[in-house]
């Protein structure tokens, strides 16, 4: 009897250990194969909104207009503290934005060249994986990486996990601006670009696209006839840190760069 119970206990323990070890292992294997499959798939199966940034025709004026309208309408507080400023869309130099696409021979043309950056709304977002409250999640209906400002506990795990630096923490209380109806954020939560989800809801396109003079193209990747799909088929585009496997959905057109833009330093 005692032996029987013991062996039964052992069986239970081994089963539990097997389940505890096996399920995460299986989950990891499944996630890995899906990531690889997604990387090679022509188009996503479900709606995935994406942005194509035409760096060839983007100028500083356009970029500043995009940043300005986004930050004003989304109540992003202005800050003189460069280390703690909140940014949804911002400019960064090419060699910092694309460290794995840059080499010394490109230096003259590309070093220091500003690039417009924003949240990539990745296929497999590092921030969503780590969030302990699901305050940030990948929305199935349109593929946006969303934020719930009422649920976020401010652990900043997403800030440290995001390899693109798109996330900012609210170090102090923001003030509601009178210029816009978009709610501000309380201190202690993390925020980022939301592809203007509040505008998409009422059938409008993101704010930055409206002032981009055609250098930003926005649309659904799963639709082969969408503007972004056609553009991606026609042009050579790159994404940030492609090798990380996060599957960024902000694409950059680099061709014609040297022809279209004055070289850096001139």
């Amino acid at each position: 009897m005692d032996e029987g119970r013991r062996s039964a206990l052992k069986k239970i323990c081994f089963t539990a250990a097997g389940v505890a070890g096996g399920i995460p292992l299986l989950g990891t294997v499944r996630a890995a194969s899906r990531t690889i499959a997604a990387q090679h798939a022509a188009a996503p199966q479900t709606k995935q909104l994406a942005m194509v940034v035409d760096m060839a025709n983007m100028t500083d004026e356009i970029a500043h207009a995009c940043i300005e309208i986004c930050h004003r309408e989304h109540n992003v507080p202005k800050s003189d503290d460069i280390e703690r400023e909140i940014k949804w869309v911002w400019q960064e130099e090419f060699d910092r934005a694309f460290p794995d696409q840059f080499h010394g021979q490109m230096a003259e043309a590309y070093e220091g060249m500003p690039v417009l950056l924003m949240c990539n709304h990745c296929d497999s977002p590092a921030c969503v994986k780590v969030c302990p409250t699901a305050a940030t999640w990948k929305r199935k209906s349109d593929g946006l990486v969303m934020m719930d400002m009422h649920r976020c506990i401010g652990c900043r795990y997403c800030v440290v996990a995001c390899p693109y630096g798109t996330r900012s923490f609210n170090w102090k209380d923001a003030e509601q601006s009178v210029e816009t109806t978009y709610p501000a954020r309380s201190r202690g939560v993390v925020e980022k670009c939301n592809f203007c989800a509040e505008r998409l809801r009422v059938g409008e396109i993101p704010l930055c696209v409206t002032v981009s003079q055609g250098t930003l193209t926005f649309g659904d990747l799963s639709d082969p006839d969408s503007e972004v799909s056609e553009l991606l088929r026609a042009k050579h585009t790159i994404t940030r840190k492609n090798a990380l496997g996060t599957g960024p959905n902000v694409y950059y057109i680099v061709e014609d760069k040297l022809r279209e833009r004055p070289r850096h330093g001139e």
Partner: protein
Amino acid sequence: MSDKPIIFAGLAVFLVLATFPVWYTFGSSLLFSTDAGPPDLAAPAGALKFSLPASAGDGDMLGRLRQEFAAHQLPALSSGAVLTEDELMGVWRIVDGEMRYLVRPDADLGTLNVYDGCVEDFEYMRSNHMILLIEWRDGVIRDGDTSQVEINGLPYAKSLTKTCLQCHNDREAFCYNCHQYANALPAWPARSQSTMNGEVGVRCWNCHIQPEAEANDG
């Protein structure tokens, strides 16, 4: 034992510290509370029942009131006078289970109330508005739900600020009054910040746009 009093004193200090949140809540309710009694839900005498048809997507309460006054040929307008904004400013109150817009007494209109209907009946909304709001929010934000709700047969967006607050635009009457009474307030430190600032303990308007401010701007 000789160190007994000291140990007891230490235990007492520990107990005070451990139960600090309880004392803090109790103390702050005494010190900072602006409204300790139950919310005033009584109907003013002589309230005039007055129904206002909803116009979808239109948040301009003032304009709608003006139209209604004209349509019903109310005294103030039938005599040719134009109501000023000041005269139309009033407060919302719950009267006989309905939301009513009460024009200020000195507006010389008698007492007037406006009831627009709501997405659910009054009883449901009083006890379950928070559940409804969370369901709306999770649906819209999390699942990309774009469906609309109906009020008086007209479609409205599932939105607190764009739909609810267009009518329930007096936070003193609609939010603070009951939330204060039910002590349904944000946790520390959010609460202490606002109570110490002389507000009533909700910080919604630190982030969300205030209906009044919107009305004044627009």
